[in-house]
């Protein structure tokens, strides 16, 4: 049953992909602005590459968050979900997963291309991809809390960014330093393990917090 709910959630998001593709395009654009601004010098760009890609991924995620719950909230879908047989936080978790599949996953897939454009040393590729694979779901999960809390605020994007960005700091630190360490020939196991730990923690707590946030907004509507 949960699988079918996910299917429809994904389908719904997929049919609105024009809204979701925008953050991905944004991600690529931001990354390609750096060589233009800094000059296309490999020695200059290579050490910055992982940081640039991570910051761009973070911004792209922020851009996509606003749409996560808004439409469904306005249409009264969320209140039906709350009343449904399936526990609400599970439905919220499914929504977050569907959202990540269409916004986070493309970033992971595109990252090697951008890493190449930014002259990232080849030893760093794997840790960048694994890091993004573990890290972008955390961005979506934490972001979902913010999206849930700001679901009723028109143009809530700024508030959302202000609220969520500080919480992204650990992900950014671990994610962006892993490729740097890999470039030095050091296995960034600790960073990736920390990302994994944070992912599990976020996956446990964030759907609960987000569903609580949505419930509060449903109550107030």
């Amino acid at each position, binding site marked *: 049953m949960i699988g079918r709910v996910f299917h429809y959630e994904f389908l719904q998001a997929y049919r609105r992909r024009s809204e979701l593709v925008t953050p991905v395009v944004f991600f690529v654009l931001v990354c390609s602005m750096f060589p233009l601004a800094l000059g296309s010098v490999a020695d200059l760009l290579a050490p910055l590459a992982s940081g640039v890609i991570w910051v761009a991924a973070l911004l792209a995620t922020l851009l996509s968050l606003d749409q996560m719950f808004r439409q469904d909230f306005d249409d009264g879908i969320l209140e039906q979900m709350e009343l449904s047989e399936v526990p609400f936080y599970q439905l919220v978790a499914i929504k977050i997963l569907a959202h990540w599949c269409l916004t986070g996953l493309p970033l992971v897939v595109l990252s090697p291309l951008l890493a190449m454009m930014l002259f990232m040393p080849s030893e760093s590729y794997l840790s960048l991809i694994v890091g993004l694979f573990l890290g972008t779901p955390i961005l979506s999960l934490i972001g979902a809390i913010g999206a849930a*809390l700001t679901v009723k605020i028109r143009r809530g994007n700024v508030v959302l960014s202000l609220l969520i960005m*500080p*919480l992204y700091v*650990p992900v950014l630190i671990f994610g962006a330093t892993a490729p740097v360490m890999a470039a030095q020939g050091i296995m960034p196991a600790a960073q990736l393990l920390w990302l994994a730990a*944070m992912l599990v923690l976020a996956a446990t707590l964030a759907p609960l917090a987000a569903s609580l946030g949505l419930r*509060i*907004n449903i109550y*107030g509507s």
Partner: protein
Amino acid sequence: MNWTWFHKWGSPKWFFQKTESLIYWFGFLALIFLVVGLVWGLAFAPEDFKQGNSFRIFYIHVPSAILAQSIFLAMAISAAVGLIWRMKLAHVFVETAAPIGASITLLALLTGAIWGKPTWGTWWVWDARLTSTLIQFFLYLGIISLHQSIENRDTASKATAIACLVGVVNLPIIKFSVNWWNTLHQPATFTLTESPAMATEMWVPGLIMVLGFYMLFAYLVTLRMRSEILEREKGSAWVKAYLEKLNVL
């Protein structure tokens, strides 16, 4: 255990009446502590053998840094109380304490920068402590702006409470990661708190300043809470009676 006191304090009317005289005590004690601490710290405490007189900013910087963190913790506890027991007064505390917390954090950052210039030779260092304090400041700003942008008061209170709780869960993780991130590049040469064992005549005024800051916070937050209660309960009979009494006097 008897919980009636807990529920009594949860009532805005009770709180308002009980803090009527308490608030003067807070203000009085804050004034005493701050004046004594400042005069002692700035004029009478010996100067530091290394830093000379510039270390005296310690007497503002350290209390504000301590208070900034305590306020965040107090807000989170209060937020949990508000959500679990549906206590509106707890939400009032969170909302009124947040701007004070943000200002105190800003004060800690500014005094830190002023202190950093003579000792480190630079206004700002991406040191672990500074960075996590800065992030804490951003968290305060996020919470305040969330509260301000939701129109429905009840929704705003609860959303703010959740944001506080999420922030407090994250704060240790942020601290840890920033700490670690920092050591990768350059470990803090000396951290602000682990200063070489301080002489008694130097830390006692510091302690008085810490108490003074706490009292100042208690005074400010009570003041703000009282006015917020009046605003919220302006339709109720007891507020009308109170205002009439004020007018008569």
